[in-house]
Each structure stands twice: as structure tokens, then as C-alpha cells.
């Protein structure tokens, strides 16, 4: 195969202007990238040097404008294998140097084309580092990207005041209940990968509640022989029970965990039934709230694939993928009794800690078969250091099942 077969070249895009406007009045001029028009959302930065395609399609970025700190974006184009969901979720995209040409044997089209085709408004040629430093110092805030006709009103260029006003009119992220906006409408099944089970039968059945799930997550379970039923966020505990699952999983997702009342109640139903539970990201925050801990918004969040986390069970450090703006407020050291309902869920430890800023990165119930992490062991994009957590979940379900059958034996004897 030659370069010409590999390469997808962007048609000349011209140099039309675009503006990124922050709610505090910060403005930078750049070039329009992707679709032309207006977009508003919460502006956050992501420090990953690889994996833009996974980032763009991660539903957790719903309603967020993402600034990429890596300067060259789009170099490997867009392929058909790497998306984490069916569409691009970011509200807007901010890059410094957009690739003119895609170079990868897997590339099918350029990122510019993909953004335009999916109607994602972006901006390039801005000082992304200056923006990042600004957000680091002042915290994330609302912002808008404006290009093309959106820069004009009644035949005149719009004023900065006008644009800032439009940005400020957008809803804030705090208090936003967004999981339902990104969740699947219909339940679907991901079957175990071929050869992943000893006898062709699934090693376990998991109900995964889609709060914005990334496609890699059920795949990581399916690789381990698990059958995964991915269900909508609106699912009830009775619907979950109907699957007779060996375990329940809550995914990542966008929005404020403080607003996720339904999901918290749903998870309490799971915990009450003693079904093994594993949660990632939003799922970790839901577990925290279900146990009665608070959650809070971080100044500028963790978004990147280089974050050191210590697994306190082993004392080892893993380099992990993060994407969270909120975190759980639980006592960092030692065991604590989960505050909910007079301690009915028993003792809890913070199992994983972020070493950069001592943020809670994982919870483990000592008296219930439930644990969760704030970061992304499914790692798409990102390092695979934390893949062992999926093994832990499978082992937890297996041990519960054998305990369960022992208990059943016991019951028979007693009766």
C-alpha cells in the first residue's frame, strides 16, 4: 500500500476567523475548525497526547468544550475502530494546530471533515496553553466558540459583550442532570468474546447501567467472558432484577452527581440486594452518594491519561486515564462507616487516591460486594495499568456466586 492509499487530504479550508469567548470576558481569535456556527458549554482542558478520537466520542464530555493541550490534533485522522460511542459528544473543540493531512494506515477521513460532518464547532490556532493556565487558575467556566455567520448580527460584527452575554445564558454544569441525555434508548447485549469463556457459557452476567458508557467498557468485560446487558439510565431495579445478574455496573457519564437522584436510588436498590457492584467515574460518584458521602466540583477537574493513582491495597502506583470534574468527599484515611441511613451499608475505605492532589479515586465497601473507581480502567484513550479492576469485578462475582451456592446448600440442610 502506498502513501496515497493511506493518506486522506483535507481540501483547503480557507482561513475564516473564529472566536473563543469565556464567560469572564477572555477572548482569543483563531481559525474556524470543523463546523461553522455557535456552540456554548463548559470549557475544560484535556492533557492527553494521544486519543483525540476516543475523547471526542466519550459521552462524559457532553455539553463541554474541550481544549486539547497537545498542540497537533488530527494527525492520524479518523478511523472506524476507535470511537467510544456512536457520535462526537463534545460541544466544541479547541486545538492549536489542526492536521491538514491524516497519516495512518487506519485513517478513513480527516478529523476536520468528521467534525464538520457531525456539526461540531471548533477553533484552531489559539494559544491553548494560555487558555489552560487561565482555567487552572480561575477554574472551569462557560465559554462559546463562534465562527462564520455566528460572528455577525444584522450585518455588523458582534461585540464581545454580546458574545459574552450569549455564553452566560448557557446553563452551568453544577446541578445538571445529563445522564439521560446521553444514555442508550434501548437495552442491548454485548456477548463474551470468542474464546474468552472455558465452556462457551458466559462466566457471569452483568447489567451495565449506561450513564454515558464508553464502548470499551463492556468490551473489557466481554474479553473476560462476561455477558453484558447495557441498559438505559432510566432502568428500574425491577428491570435489573429481571436479568438475574451476577453483578451490576454503573458507567461514567456527564453532569453533576448531586443531581442524579434516580441513579442513587437505583444503586441503593442494588446494594440492598447484595448484588456485586462495580462503578467507574460517574458510577463512583453515585456509589459515594448512595453510601451517604457528598460530592463536590473540582476547580478544573482531571482530564488526561497520565494521572498517578495509588491502589492502597497493594501500595502500587498506576498511571491512569481521567475525565472527571466532580469528586467524592470521603475520609481519606482508614475505615469509615457509610453515613447513609445510620450506617446500614457498613464500613467503607478509600481504596484509590490520586497522588497529584489527594483526591478520592476509588471506594471499597468492606461489608458489601461493592467497589468503584473515579478514573477509567477501560482506558480508551489511555494506559492499561488499571485493567486488573475488571478482573477484580469478575472475581468478586465468582466468589459471591460460590458463597451464594454454599449458602443455598446451607439452607437446604437447615430446612
Amino acid at each position, binding site marked *: *500500500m*502506498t*502513501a*496515497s492509499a*493511506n*493518506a486522506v*487530504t483535507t481540501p483547503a479550508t480557507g482561513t475564516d476567523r473564529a472566536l473563543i469567548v469565556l464567560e469572564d470576558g477572555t477572548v*482569543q481569535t483563531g481559525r474556524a475548525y470543523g463546523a461553522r456556527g455557535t456552540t456554548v458549554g463548559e470549557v475544560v*482542558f484535556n*492533557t*492527553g*497526547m*494521544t*486519543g483525540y*478520537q*476516543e475523547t471526542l466520542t466519550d459521552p462524559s464530555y457532553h455539553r463541554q468544550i474541550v481544549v486539547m*493541550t*497537545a*498542540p*497537533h490534533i488530527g*494527525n*492520524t485522522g479518523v*478511523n472506524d*475502530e*476507535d470511537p467510544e460511542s456512536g457520535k462526537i459528544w463534545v460541544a466544541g473543540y479547541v486545538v*492549536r*494546530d489542526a492536521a*491538514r*493531512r*491524516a*497519516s*495512518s*494506515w*487506519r485513517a478513513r477521513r480527516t478529523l476536520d471533515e468528521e467534525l464538520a460532518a457531525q456539526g461540531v464547532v471548533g477553533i484552531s490556532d*489559539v*494559544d*491553548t*496553553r*494560555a487558555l*489552560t*493556565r487561565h482555567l*487552572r487558575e480561575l477554574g472551569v467556566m462557560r465559554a462559546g466558540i463562534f465562527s462564520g455567520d455566528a460572528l455577525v448580527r444584522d450585518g455588523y460584527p458582534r461585540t464581545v459583550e454580546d458574545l459574552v452575554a450569549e455564553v452566560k445564558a448557557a446553563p452551568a454544569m453544577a446541578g445538571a442532570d445529563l445522564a439521560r441525555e446521553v444514555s442508550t434508548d434501548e437495552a442491548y447485549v454485548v456477548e463474551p468474546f470468542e474464546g474468552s469463556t472455558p465452556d462457551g457459557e458466559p462466566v457471569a452476567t452483568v447489567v451495565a447501567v449506561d450513564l454515558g458508557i464508553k464502548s470499551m467498557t463492556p468490551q473489557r468485560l466481554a474479553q473476560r467472558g462476561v455477558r453484558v446487558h447495557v441498559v438505559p439510565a432510566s432502568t428500574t431495579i425491577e428491570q435489573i432484577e429481571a436479568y438475574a445478574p451476577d453483578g451490576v455496573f454503573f458507567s461514567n457519564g456527564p453532569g453533576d452527581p448531586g443531581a442524579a437522584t434516580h441513579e442513587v436510588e437505583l444503586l441503593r436498590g442494588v446494594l440492598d440486594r447484595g448484588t456485586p457492584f462495580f462503578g467507574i467515574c460517574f458510577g463512583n460518584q453515585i456509589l459515594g452518594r448512595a453510601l451517604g458521602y457528598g460530592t463536590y466540583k473540582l476547580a478544573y477537574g482531571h482530564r*488526561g*491519561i*497520565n*494521572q*498517578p493513582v*495509588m491502589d492502597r491495597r497493594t*501500595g*502500587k*502506583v498506576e*498511571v491512569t486515564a481521567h475525565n472527571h470534574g466532580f469528586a467524592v468527599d470521603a475520609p481519606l484515611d482508614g475505615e469509615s462507616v457509610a453515613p447513609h441511613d445510620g450506617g446500614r451499608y457498613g464500613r467503607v475505605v478509600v481504596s484509590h487516591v490520586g*497522588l*497529584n*492532589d489527594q483526591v478520592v479515586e476509588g471506594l471499597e465497601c468492606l461489608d458489601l460486594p461493592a467497589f468503584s473507581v473515579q478514573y477509567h480502567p477501560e*482506558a480508551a*484513550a*489511555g*494506559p*492499561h495499568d488499571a485493567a486488573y479492576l475488571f478482573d477484580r469485578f469478575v472475581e468478586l462475582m465468582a466468589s459471591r456466586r460460590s458463597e451464594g451456592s454454599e449458602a443455598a446448600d446451607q439452607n437446604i440442610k437447615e430446612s
Partner: protein
Amino acid sequence: MPRRTDISSVLVIGSGPIVIGQACEFDYSGTQACRVLKEEGLRVVLVNSNPATIMTDPEFADATYVEPITTEVLTSIIAKERPDALLPTLGGQTALNAAIALDEAGVLAEYGVELIGANIAAIQKGEDRQQFKDVVEKCGGESARSLIVHTVEEAVAAAGDLGYPMVVRPSFTMGGLGSGFAYDEEELRRIVGQGLHYSPVTEVLLEESILGWKEYELELMRDKNDNVVVVCSIENVDPVGVHTGDSITVAPALTLTDREYQKLRDIGIAVIREVGVDTGGCNIQFAVDPDTGRVIVIEMNPRVSRSSALASKATGFPIAKIAAKLAVGYTLDEIPNDITQVTPASFEPTLDYVVVKVPRFAFEKFPAADPTLTTTMKSVGEAMALGRNFTEALGKALRSIDKGGAVFHWDGEPVSGAELDDLLVRIARPTENRIIGVQQALRAGASVEQVFEATKIDPWYLDQIQLVNEVAAAVADAPALTHDVLREAKKHGLSDAQVARLRGMGPAGEATVREVRYALGVRPVYKTVDTCAAEFAARTPYHYSSYDLETEVAPREREAVIILGSGPNRIGQGIEFDYSCVHAALTLRERYETIMVNCNPETVSTDYDTSDRLYFEPLTFEDVLEVYQAELAAGPVKGIIVQLGGQTPLALAQRLADAGLPILGTSPEAIDAAEDRGEFGRVLVEAGLPAPAFGTARSLDEAKDVAAGIGYPVLVRPSYVLGGRGMEIVYSAEQLTGYVERALAAAAAEDRTAGTLPAPLLIDRFLDDAMEIDVDALYDGTELFLGGVMEHIEEAGIHSGDSACVLPPVSLSEQEIERIRRSTEAIAKGVGVRGLLNVQYALVSDVLYVLEANPRASRTVPFVSKATGTSLAKAAARVMAGESIAALRAAGVLPAEGDGGTLPLDAPIAVKEAVLPFKRFRTADGTVVDTVLGPEMRSTGEVMGFDRDFPHAFAKSQAAAFGGLPTSGRVFVSVADRDKRSIVFPVKRLAELGFEILATDGTSSVLRRNGIASRVVRKFSAGRGADGEPTIVDLITAGEVDMVINTPSGQGARADGYEIRAATTAADKPIATTVDQLAAAVQGIEAVLAGPFAVASLQEHMAGEGLTAGVAPAAPERVGA
């Protein structure tokens, strides 16, 4: 867990002399390690034979041994110092091999020394080809299909299986020495033959070809808790086939998706675990098939490497420093990130900029060498640049190379038609400036696909180069230089000079472009290397320029001194100059904010710990001026130091002064006065000092007249050169004609037709049989401090950088030294020196001629400082900043009384020996280039032998540089007629010491008449005898000759000599090409025969303590390097 408490002293082995493939990056890593270990309260014992290193400055270790890195010497040091542990992973392959040898000899076990940071099994697994293949397979990776062979015949048989071309890699060699591509059987036989020779275990690996694949490297670190992080990914722009040291490389990798990158990361982590690198760093190289993504693991280095130095500078994550901490027991999460100070080192740096490294070559020094780049590293240095995008970083890196033809250009008409086809063929072969050829081909209309077909350079990079061409075309075609046009040009790395040329603006164009740019407000900002893409605040001001929005230069109150470094290492301008810059930064930090500007990633000067602020920038007028302006906006600037970094910063002095920048120390006018033959001649006349007759010429006729007036032989060279570039000794008018014609051929077309040279030619009388003397001195305007007087061992005519020398001078009288002092003082005064001055003298029949004077730091400053125990560079920096020598004496920076010219009689003797890279350079047919020394410098590094007398010091220097003098065996002697008288005595002594003497006919008869028996051997030109009697070259190649004495005849047929010298170098045997070298060698051999070397640390030498007797090694001697 904190550091281990069961270790209280550590032996650190350095990497010895600078050679190609192992340069000053190991001074950077070793210096960091020594600092860390001392901070941890450990007693540090350091061994390194290279005096030009910062690490061998006495303050960096508790006991510093500038001694040969051999098993014998290391054993003596271990017996004396009894260290608890040995850290061998920071001194390159030399240190690693030395540690293995000590282990094999049982020395580590005998003295209870624990190897830390590595274990023998891991080293073997990482470096042994077959073991490593097994490791890779176990880790789910793939290796290229390969076979290991131990003979040439096995290799030929393997060809049936693997097919041509085939890669040949010898085991256990560094810098890819001896490896290459074989396209047919003949080449295979040759390359395998050499490879088997270079491999200490006589083993080579043959591999399927993966030429043209994408090449990547990962730098990993592991701690004792098995935490592993990937510090940096590096992508080679030049695909597989070119040694990574010779490739243009980029960090981070830019053309991999996350899935592919994570695949490399997973394999890398599995490999470092499986190999069992205990703690510390390792480097793994991968090849990726551009069509399918198939990944092949090429190799790993279980130690700190050149790439780890690059990765450290590229990311701000100091690999060597952290490796040292891990070795003494810390884990990654216990070590804070230097730059943020609040986050731990157990993370992976993320970059919001692009780093480009470009190699610098020295093929002009070896005209006979084949300039094709291969898997054997040939570059002598490198420049690194950072930018906010690839084009900006590339443009900056290319101009950092500081050499003609290194930057993109749009001169003349683009090539077309057959010329373009020809160009596409040429760029298929990797060479020094291939990237320029690529740019020209794209400029000429070749498509990215066509250039990809020719070069296999990833299309993304080619498109970026095409983008630069498009921006350049926009600059050329714009009706006027507007803000947008200029901003776009600067954003993609074009210099003001390039913009001016594109606009056809003539010689003053660069200044005009700058004026326009300033008027339009198109100025660079300075960003910070912070390891985390701004996620956390950076506490370390490590900056690079970019044409972006926001600058991060912090305001300051203290007055600043800006120090210009020396740029990429090259022959003639290397680590010795960086040494002086580092000292200036360290000493001036006490009073000033020190600001380093440099673009060489291998150095200590570009360690962000060295100065208060670091600007990783090209050393061009434009880039330096912008740094100055940025710092001036941040606070007061006292001035700029240009005289420590060698010719690169010196060449900027006048322009910087003209632009109003305060130059500290010797003024640019004074620098000019010393460089300009006419002006300097007047200084000498006024001082009453003789100089060899000289003249200048700009045409052949003028040159002939001047030479005839002076009388042959004459020394001819172009003006304004460092390292003797283009310098030749000319014995006749014919030879002179040839020289001028070659110079004209290289000149511009208009000069060629006119027959005038672009710069004047300097023609000096060549002083035959003179003793050359080198002096480093310090002058403050009133007092002269004579740093050291060095007597060359080779006579005048051999470049001082290639000549061995001895300090204190062993054959000069006190009166002669006094005369040297007075002359030096007169020159310092006459020129107007404030700071350092280097003068070269020639002593002929009691007349002291001044050959040249350089009012700047010289190559010998570190050697002189080590040999005399006085830091000349520190003192020089303070003199430049305004302190007097008297004040420095009072402050203890300089000795209270006396100087390097008044050393006591019992002072130890230091011998500096040069290390030459001939072995790396092959002609197109594969033979070694000629190894004869001349007025053009070609050495890459140096060692120091330090002992109580000259013979011992000389012998040590030979052991350190070449692996030592023979003590028995055969010596071959063949000398020019003029030398026949002088060899009688030394050769007689060799015979008495038991050597068998071999000689050619003529030499043999002279020896016989003097009563010395010798065996006559056939000349090479005579060919083998009727019954296959071997020629001398055959004997040397067969390893039957242990030392060669061959002085070239001045002119005429030199073929015999060349073949002899090439064969000797290829066979790794010592060779003397001058009579003086022979005499020194004989003295050295006697010293070696007297028993094991005694050893002493610099600290003991300075305290006036004697040497400790050496310990005879239990096992047979094995040389570490």
C-alpha cells in the same frame, strides 16, 4: 519507604572520553547522580578518565579519581575505598561493561560491593540478542526474524533464509558500532567480519530487513515496587535504517493513534519487567510497519542512554537524577516532581509543545568517508529545539545546527524535469542534509507521495515541510510584509534571515525584517517546560520561545547575567566549552540571576538545575537578541557572556554589541584584534614578540607569492576557523595550487570565475621540529594569572586539540616559563583581555614564536583546572563580571599566591591525550579513513593521566584512551627518512624490553647498522610474496603486531603509510605517527612494566598526599571500554 540505610558509600563509574555514540550526555547524567547521592548523605567515589567533565570537579564527589576505567585500576580503587555499592547505569556502555568485567573477575564479590540500579542478569538479558528475543516473545511482542552467528560462513548460509538486504548487529557494542546493511554476499562478508571483531563475544545478529518502517523509542523507568512509567516517546523522522543518534527525532510521537501507542507502552512495560531492570531507566526501540501497523521490538538499553538525556531535556523529567534516587531505595511516588514540586514523579509527562532533535555531523573532517547514514552512528553532536508546533521546532532546530546548508532555503529556481528525478533518487539515500533535499523536492513540485516513496518519511511530516514551503511562498509573494504574513512565517519557524532572503532584501535585509516585525508587534513569547501541559504551576523557569499569545517570563529584581552556551557538539567545540559555561553559571549565581541560553540537549549547561533560568534556544543573533529583550523586560541585565562557549557565541559578539547589548569581559573589538592577522601582528610588534612570517592571499597568484616569500613548508588555512578546519601543511607550489583550487571549487560561482576566495587565506611559515606550547591565562587589566603551561608531546603542526600534552611542562626551564609569562601578559595587555586568554607558542632553537592567541575559554580550561586544582572558568566568569584577580585570590577562588606557572617540583604530572574517531568513518569500499594527524582537528574527546611522573601519567593516559600500551610482543617500525636518526634510541630500548622488531627494508638497514636486530617484512605496495608471504598490512590485520610506529613522509606517495595506519586502527592497536609519540610510548611501556598503576583521588592530589599503590588484579586484565 525511604532510602536504604545499609549503604553508606557508592562507587560511580563515568563514561570516559567523549566518543561518537557516547558523549557528554553521560556527564549530564553522572553529574546529576553524584549530586543526588551526595544530597542523600552518601560518600561518593567517582571514577572517570575524562577531565573535561563537570562530574569530575572535586566538589561533586567525595573522592574523584581521574584514572583509566580498566578492571585493574577499578580494582585498586575498590580495594582502597571499599565502597558498599557500585552504580554502573549512568556511565553509558563503558560503565556497564566495566561493571560486568569487575563482576566476572570476582572483584565485586571479593570486596563485597553490591551492584545497584542494575543486575548482571538483566544486563545480559537486555544486551544479549538471543536472550532479548526470548524476552520479547514472552512479552507478547515480535522481533525481526533473525539468526545469531559466530563466523562469516554461518552468516553467508543464513542469507538463504533471511534474504537481502540483511541487518548485521554485533553484540555488546555501543552506538551501533560495526553494524550495517548488507545488500549482497560481498558486503555481508565484510560487515560480518568487522562485526565479529568489534563484538567482545565474537557474535553478530543477522536480521530480516525492516528498512523504511516507522521508528519509535520509549524511555521507561521502574522502581523497586515494580511501578513503571513511560517518561517520553520519541519518533524518528528518518525511518528504520538510520541510527537513532543520526536521525532527526521528534518528541512526543506524533503519528500514532492511542491504540498503537498503548500497544508500544504495554510491550515496553512487559519487557522492562521481564528483563528485570531493578530500578532505573531503560530505553526500548520499536519499528512499526507503516502499511499494517505490525510492531517489532528492535532493542533495549538497560541503562541511562543518549535518548534518556534527550527525553529528560524534552520533558523536564530528569531521568538520571531519579534513577539515582531509585537505586538507593526510593520509589517513584516518594520522589517529588522537580518542576511542580507538589506532584510526585510517579506519573508520565505530557507535553504541550513539540521537540525536534537534529544531529550534527563532521564529514568535512573526513573527506574520504562515505557520508551515507546507516545503523552505525556517525554524528558528533546534536541540537534540540522546542516549539509550539512541529514546523516551529524544526526551523529552530535546523538553525541551531550552526552550519552552512543546514536550513531550508528557497534560493534560485526550483529544480525541474530530470534534475527533480535525480533529486528524488538522491534523497532516497539518507545523508547529512537529506531534509533539505526533501524540502527542495517538495518545493520543486514533487508530491508528498513521491517523496514518501523515495524516503519513507511519514507523509504527515512531509506535509508539514510542504506547509513551510507554502508559507515561504506566501512570504515571497506578499505585496508587503504585513502582520499576518510575518506572524504566519514566524509561527512556522522561519527566521528573520530566511524571510529577508525570500523577499530578496539583500545583506541588510535581516535587520529590516526585524524592524518591520517589531513595528508590527510580531514578537515571540516564552513558554515553560513543565512536565504537565500547564495542569500544575511550574516552579522551574525552563523556557522556550514560540510565536504565541502569552509569555511566562517572570519579573525579577536581581540583576541578571546571560551566558551563551556553545550549541551542538562538534569536533573542535565540545564539552570543554560547556564546562566553562556551567562554571560561570554556578559561580555567578551567588551574586546574579544566571540565565543560560543553549540548544544542546546533551550538556550539563542545559540542565535546569545549573542556572536560575534556562532558555532552550538556538544560538543565532535573532534568537539571542529576543531572549535578551525578554529578560530586559523582566528586570535589570548586567550583561552577556560570550567568551566561554567557543566560536558560536563569539561569532555573535560584534553584532550583539552593535545592537547595544552589554558584552561582559573582553570586548568584541579586542576579540577581533586577536583574530585579525594585521591587527594582532601590530600587537606583537609593539610587545617585541616574534611570530612566524605570514601573509594573506585572496587568489592563487597572491598565495604563491606569499608562500615563496616565506619559504616552504607553509601552513595554509582560511581565516576565522576553530578546530583547524581546512588547515594544511603545504610543502610545494604544486600542493598549494591544489589547495587553492579546492577552496575555489567550494566558493560561490562569481568568486570562482573571478578566481578570488571569499575570505582571505592565511599563510604561515611552518615551524618544522618546533615544540608547541599551549597557555591558558586569566587577565583582569592589571594582573595576569597563568593558569597552566602545557607542553605538547607531538611537535608543532598537529592541531593542539589532537596533540597529547603534559602539564606542568616536563622539559621547560624556569626561565622559559618566565618568558612565556611575560609574553602572555604583553599579549593580554595589548589585545585588551578581560577574562580568559589562550596562547599557542612554538619554541624553536630558543626562539619563542607566538602562533596564535584566542581571548576566550579554550578547550584546555577544564584540563588545566583539574591538573592544577584551580577553577579557571569560575575565576574567569567573576573577572568578566568585574572582580579583580587580587580580590579572587583574597576570596579563595584563586590561590593566595603563585599560579599555574609556579607549580612546585613535586606537583603531580597530568597528561592529556586525545581520542580519535577514525574507526567510525569508512570509505565507500569499507576501509577505515586515514588516521594520520595534522593541523586539522579530528578528535572527539580527551582523557587525563595523572601520576607522580611523566612516564606513569603518559601510560595512564594511553590506558584510558586506547586500552593501554603493550608490554610484550611485536613492534613494527617504518618511518620517513628524516626521522630515521631519531628512532634509533627508542627502538633499541624496545628491543631491550623484549619486543620483537619488524621493519621495512629501509628502516631495517638503519636499525641493523645501529646494532638493533629486526625482521624485514614486505611492504604493502610490494604485494604478497611468491609463496604467499604476508605484507605488513596482512600481519597487522591478523593481529600479529602489537604496536606500530609509522611516521608519514611529508609528500609524495603515501599509500603504504595509509594502508598501515588504517589497518592498525581497524585492528585496535596503538600507533605512533611521530617520533615524540614513540619516545613517550617507550617511557610509558617502562612504567607499565613496573607494576600496577598507583591511584589517587583529585582530593588527595590537592591535599598534597601521595598515591596509593595499585593492587594486582586477581583475574586477567580486561579493559572496561
